[in-house]
């Protein structure tokens, strides 16, 4: 049922004379031999090429390791320079420091608890208030201003002993 295809290139006898066949073979046969000098030249170039790649790769590896060591050294120096066990202590609000003069309510030249006490009494009695008593600048003169004055009074950097 399947129709067999016939090939005419190898299996068929074309009736070519043997002399012609030999001549054609000689003419079209590929040159498979490589001259030794060409072979050596190719090998030399290949050696040079791969030697270059190898030395470049080595340099690249050295650079990578240098970076790693430098990074590790930087981390170690940083670790030693930082006192990691040092505890941070709470500090007085900077706002207080800048408002020390305003906190001297009785204007006797020092800020103590009596300034806060007088301000508190004034607020409770709804007496006349001065705008500068708004120590925290929130637009109100209230207990929070008293607290700011009192905290300014107990600031540690103004001790008397």
């Amino acid at each position: 049922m399947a129709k067999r295809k016939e090939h005419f290139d190898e299996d068929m006898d074309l009736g070519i004379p043997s002399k012609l066949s030999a001549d054609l073979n000689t003419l079209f046969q590929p040159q498979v031999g490589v001259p030794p000098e060409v072979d050596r030249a190719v090998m030399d170039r290949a050696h040079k090429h791969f030697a270059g790649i190898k030395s470049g790769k080595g340099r690249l590896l050295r650079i990578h390791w240098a970076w790693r060591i430098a990074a590790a050294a930087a981390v170690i120096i940083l670790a030693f320079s930082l006192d990691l066990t040092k505890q941070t202590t709470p500090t007085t609000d900077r706002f207080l420091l800048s408002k020390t003069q305003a906190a001297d309510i009785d204007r006797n030249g020092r800020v103590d608890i009596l300034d806060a006490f007088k301000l508190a009494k004034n607020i409770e009695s709804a007496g006349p208030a001065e705008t500068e008593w708004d120590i925290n600048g929130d637009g109100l003169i209230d207990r929070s201003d008293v607290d700011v004055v009192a905290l300014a009074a107990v600031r540690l950097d103004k001790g008397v002993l």
Partner: protein
Amino acid sequence: MNKLTPIILAGICMIVPVLAQQSEQDYSTAQSGVRFAPLHIYIDSGNSSLAAYQFELKASAGQIKIVGVEGGRHEAFKEAPYYDPAALAKDRIIIAAFSTGSDLPKGRTRIATIHLQIIGETEPQYELKLIVAADADAKEIPAEITFEKGEI
């Protein structure tokens, strides 16, 4: 593996000093002995009503750390007084309080208690100075300040 090596080394170098310092602290604490004790502060205002006070305390000998502050016995000063939070873990503190109420103490009254961490065997000595005491009119009054060492 090549990438992990420097990370591990760096981690070790960071952890070792911390652990060493911590163990050194623990060792010194265990060696020297640490105890906690309250220090009760009293003001004697005589016949005057005490409405406001401010004082300063510091250790003149021994090694202490202030670890807490609480108010006094009388209702007028029961609330925790004002103090600088920066004084905690140090050996010096300024404490103040006032009361605008009408019920004020007279005579000798405990106005505050300071909780201390005492480090070492040396018994600490304290320097206590009354900065100001005032009556209900905010007028300064003569008063005497004293302390008593408490036990836990």
